[in-house]
């Protein structure tokens, strides 16, 4: 089955300069009861975004009309904790196409890549530059190019290259799907089973 394609984006960003953002913050467990992949964006960062009476907390960035865009920029060790893919679904469903951080937890990174949500790992220095740029001008635009593997702060021209697994890169650019690939190797799986 074809999956979401990602090649290039250029957009303003939403800054969330907190470290160790775990998947329980991204989507608390009590909102994991749906049996489809849709609608998780409504509960993205639920307990940071809304108070106990479901009123938006004014000091949280997603409730600040000055910030918007397709890129979420966050502190190091983003997505640690639970393996819930719902975290990636929630971020994508809310409308983000990429997450930028100086470090990602393993399982989250894999889940994001499997959903057309690009995790872009940058240096601590470059992460600070992005935060500085967006705090200087909330409309600061960042460009991410997956084909040539770079991220650029458009106003200053500062850029950095980032790494991505070549196989996953091909999947994202072409909309390929892991299951289709493994199924194409089914003969090898059956052979493996028969000789072990």
């Amino acid at each position, binding site marked *: *089955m074809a999956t979401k394609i990602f090649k290039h984006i250029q957009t303003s960003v939403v800054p969330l*300069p*907190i*470290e*160790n953002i*775990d998947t*329980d*913050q991204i989507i*608390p*467990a*009590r909102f*994991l*009861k*749906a*049996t*489809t*992949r849709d609608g998780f964006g409504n509960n993205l960062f639920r*307990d940071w975004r809304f108070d*106990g009476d479901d009123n938006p907390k004014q000091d949280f960035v997603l409730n600040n009309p000055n910030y918007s865009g397709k890129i979420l920029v966050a*502190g*190091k*060790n983003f997505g*640690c*904790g*639970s*393996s*819930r*893919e*719902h975290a*990636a679904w929630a971020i994508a469903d809310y409308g983000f196409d990429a997450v930028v951080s100086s*470090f990602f*937890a*393993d*399982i989250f990174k*894999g*889940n994001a890549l*499997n*959903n057309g949500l690009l995790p872009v790992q940058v240096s*601590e220095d470059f992460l*600070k530059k992005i935060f500085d740029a967006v705090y200087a001008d909330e409309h600061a635009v960042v460009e991410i190019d997956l084909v040539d593997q770079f991220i650029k702060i458009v106003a200053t021209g500062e850029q950095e290259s980032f790494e991505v*697994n*070549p*196989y996953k890169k091909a999947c994202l650019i072409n909309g390929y799907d*892991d*299951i289709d*690939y*493994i*199924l194409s*190797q*089914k003969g*090898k*799986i059956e052979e*493996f*089973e028969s000789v*072990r």
Partner: protein
Amino acid sequence: MGQTLFDKIWDAHVVSSSEGFPDILYIDTHFIHEVTSPQAFDGLRQRGLPVFRPKQTVATADHNVPTIDQHLPIKEELSRYQVDMLTKNCKEFGVELYGLGHPYQGIVHVIGPELGITRPGGTYVCGDSHTSTHGAFGAIAFGIGTSQVEQVLATQCLLQSRPKRMKIEVNGKLQKGVGAKDIILYIIAQISAAGGTGYAVEYAGDTIRSLSMEGRMTICNMSIEMGARCGLIAPDETTINYVKGREFAPKGEEWDKAVAYWETLYSDADAAFDEVLSFKAEDIEPMITYGTNPGMGIGVTQHVPETASFEAKEQGSYKKALDYMGLHDDETLLGKPIDYVFIGSCTNSRIEDLRQVAEFVKGKHKADNVTVWVVPGSKQVQQQAIAEGLDKIFNEAGFPLREPGCSACLGMNEDKIPAGKYCVSTSNRNFEGRQGPNSRTFLASPLTAAASAITGVVTDIRTFLKEEELV
């Protein structure tokens, strides 16, 4: 050059390895539960695919289940729907389900080992990050996302790049009152909640070797809390004795063949690790966390670190964590009043945990200000506890024994810690709101949790043990 234990197991499961692609890794057993599987089954339906190897797939309901009155329908509608959906999917796709009411039901990471499904040398995955638990048997076991659950259901394989290898050695003699939970909380506090990211971690050293299987499972369970892909411990006599005779363990000739293979599963003396860390058992105190990730832990007699001791860019996140916890710089947790004690979760809900707590609380009673929940990891653990009379000891101590499930570990079912309340918890995560919106978690060992329940404040278990020795 010799091989690591991890590489021996990995190589034995590689179906295909191509330049520029992740390996196709064969999965021996795929555990599934109600929360992370429904979308995967839907995916199979959309593709018109069956479950490729239903006999190598094992299902249970654990995250959403209530831990009292399990014979009644689940009250919460969405939880009930999700559990019903698992039943329906398992029936449609021919997967064995140990659901509510089944004598094998329980937390997925408790039932796999106790049924003899988890064995040395195997590969195990589940849509749950604490799948790392199963590595205690000398196996490769890790958590996966739902797209990968679908992948394994469809092919019994997983596309996976080989992680780096880390060895963590712990040598020496543990102090009295210090156990497996303290060891792993100590390691994570030393290397941080991200210190293991990108690695498969092998735990070694004589302290690790001296642990029971239950203790080893506690250690491997929390590998993910330092970001590790998985944790594993080479199998030995302790492992083999644990597996022997269990429901699905190999029998007769098959058993002998299996043991002969398991005995080859260790890291060769000259095997190269990408990273090696060593710790001394003597340095480890009973541990407790004070913050909002499992790396924020201290010895129970130590003080909460000062904000100024962190780099400037980290101070904001640190302060946010302390504010959430209602703590301040340099505070000591010892003597801090608590509201709840939770003994359970895939980290500490096995029979050995319950026996240890029962032995300690026998003849004592919980403090009035504390509510205690003891939640067995499985139906079998519950039955065993009752057979041994532990339930009576617990009842007399004001520690009611509930029914099996994930319970207050994750704030998904009915068992939630109320906002602002402090819970000493034997579970694995102290994230904001993990045990319920605005709940505050102190992670600790079963003994520390039990001692704190008795006194009503955060307690150093060693003070009790000294007194008891004097009597």
